[in-house]
């Protein structure tokens, strides 16, 4: 096996034993990037100089026999919505085309303390608004399993590069499913931690009450290692929760005996692809055989999650994106007549259509005369959705659902119809409203060869139970070991 195919935990053993160096590992990844990135197009910016410099520092540590952290020397890709000091951070928007953050996001500070090797910044839907990564102002990212299909979104680049072995792991952000859905569609592990687990300082804000950073990895063990590195309260983010961060690797227990898994009947609608329903039922049967107790549960307000989401998230976005006015950073319209004209022309010229659409929905929902009917109504619906989960977790440890109602769809298939695109998030937004931890893990393939993801949700701060069930499933199946044959099942355009 080539180095780029391995997991972070396997590579750590090789680095520690000094079978390989971090520089060799980084070179292996960049060679892989040269070979397949022209097809996948997952990266917006590559940072090879920085990566090699970081790798040299780590190699010196390993050579000294220092006790190196588990992610030292591990090549990682970062979604381009996370601020990286001195490295352009665009949010895949024209409005931030030239923005170079003067500071690191807290997650970057934490990862740098571990000695990770940053490969580059990944493509995404502009400002994380989308479900296919087609809303990037720069490029279309292709799903490594079928280059004619989308990788999911909004963290489509971060999912695709892990799937394509052009990164060992990556960070994304999840507001309504933007980690879990692309992880499912690209056949990798992706996790949104509990809201407040990870500092949002330096994560460019989309919907502040929903946004959360999380990892994409090749297996559940790597997911636990990345969570260990990025979780924890932070004085720079008042919404980060001050609770102890456990060692998540302690939950990598290959045993679900006695655990209760709930299957919400509302997720198995006629809109769910029957092949996906089959794969989910088969996955749940595996867990049942391994000793878990499975019971059907009801989350009655599930059908209202999308409507609720498309008020709350745009409302928060319309406020957060008011800062892009051409004054402090980014694009500015040249020679405007006056200040208001500068704001309007700057924003109208440099925001993409989906971003404008969400700003419009959000501004409308918060405007005089409509706030109670829309925004407040949505906040009340959010309470009902959250209460469904509270009641369910009185009875079960973990909830299992499909991550996405369909496998990856064709590039261009849903771009003409925003509402149809929004419905891609039907399985992921409910947990976002409740701030729950959720993981998507590979659980098989549909007949066309595209991967299917199993979503496992836990109560707030119950990442440990989610990881345990995910790990047990993974240890007893081989879906996560399958690799796409890039370039043989589709043609890059």
């Amino acid at each position, binding site marked *: 096996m080539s180095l780029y195919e391995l997991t972070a935990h396997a590579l750590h053993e090789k680095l520690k034993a000094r079978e390989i160096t971090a520089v060799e590992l980084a070179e292996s990844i960049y060679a892989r990037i040269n070979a397949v990135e022209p097809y996948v197009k997952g990266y917006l910016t590559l940072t090879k100089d920085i990566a090699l410099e970081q790798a040299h520092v780590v190699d010196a540590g390993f050579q000294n026999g220092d006790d190196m952290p588990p992610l030292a020397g591990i090549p990682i890709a970062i979604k381009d919505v996370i601020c990286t000091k001195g490295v352009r951070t665009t949010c895949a928007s024209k409005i931030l085309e030239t923005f170079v953050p003067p500071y690191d996001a807290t997650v970057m500070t934490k990862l740098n303390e571990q000695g990770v090797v940053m490969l580059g910044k990944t493509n995404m839907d502009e400002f994380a608004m989308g479900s296919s990564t087609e809303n990037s102002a720069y490029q279309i990212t292709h799903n490594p399993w079928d280059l004619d299909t989308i990788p999911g979104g909004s963290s489509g680049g971060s999912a695709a590069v892990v799937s394509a072995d052009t990164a060992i792991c990556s960070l994304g952000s999840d507001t309504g499913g933007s980690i879990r859905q692309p992880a499912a569609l690209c056949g990798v592990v992706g996790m949104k931690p509990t809201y407040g687990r990870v500092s949002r300082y330096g994560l460019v804000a989309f919907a502040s*009450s929903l946004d959360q950073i999380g990892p994409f990895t090749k297996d559940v063990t790597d997911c636990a290692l990345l969570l260990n590195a990025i979780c924890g309260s932070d004085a720079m983010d008042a919404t980060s929760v001050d609770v102890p961060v456990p060692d998540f690797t302690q939950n990598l227990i290959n045993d679900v005996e006695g655990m209760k898994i709930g299957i919400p009947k509302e997720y198995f609608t006629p809109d769910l692809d029957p092949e996906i329903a089959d794969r989910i039922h088969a996955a749940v049967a595996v867990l049942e055989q391994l000793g878990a107790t499975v019971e059907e549960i009801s989350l009655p307000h599930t059908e209202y999650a999308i409507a609720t989401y498309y008020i709350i998230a745009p409302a928060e976005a319309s406020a957060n994106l008011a800062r892009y006015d051409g004054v402090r950073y980014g694009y500015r319209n040249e020679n405007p007549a006056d200040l208001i004209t500068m704001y309007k022309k700057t924003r109208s010229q440099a925001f993409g259509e989906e971003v404008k659409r969400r700003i419009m929905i959000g501004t409308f929902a918060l405007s005089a005369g409509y706030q109670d009917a829309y925004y407040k109504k949505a*906040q009340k619906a959010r309470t009902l959705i959250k209460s469904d989960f509270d009641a369910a977790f009185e009875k079960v440890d973990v909830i299992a659902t499909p991550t996405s109602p369909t496998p990856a769809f064709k590039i261009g298939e849903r771009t003409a119809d925003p509402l149809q695109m929004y419905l891609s998030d039907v399985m992921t937004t409910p947990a976002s409203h409740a701030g729950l931890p959720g993981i998507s893990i590979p659980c098989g393939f549909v007949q066309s060869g595209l991967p299917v993801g199993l979503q496992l949700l836990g109560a707030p701060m119950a990442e440990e139970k989610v990881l345990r069930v995910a790990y047990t499933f993974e240890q007893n199946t081989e879906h996560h070991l399958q690799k796409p044959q890039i370039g043989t099942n589709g043609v890059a355009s």
Partner: protein
Amino acid sequence: MATITTEGVQHVANLARLEFNDEETQHFTEQLARILDYIGKLNELETDDVPPTSHIHPHQVVIMGSQDGARHVAKPDVVKPSYPREDVLANAPEAEEGYFGVPRVVDRSH
């Protein structure tokens, strides 16, 4: 819940500091009307006695057994260095004498 007209779209666009030509206005009016129609689904819910959730935090604070937490986050009032002014201004489209530059907002003739 109301639907939205082209005048409504123009009004909201102005609030959001966006501008659209006639074709774009028509396009957004049709799309927003369709999205708002879907969102109208929430009217099926009886919510008079339901408190709103603005944030998930208070719930988590209770879960963790603390009654006092995220809603009262306060830091010691200690002066700490901020980012260097030149670093922050480095991203500005226009900077002058340590400030962000913008088009004139005060008319000198008054």
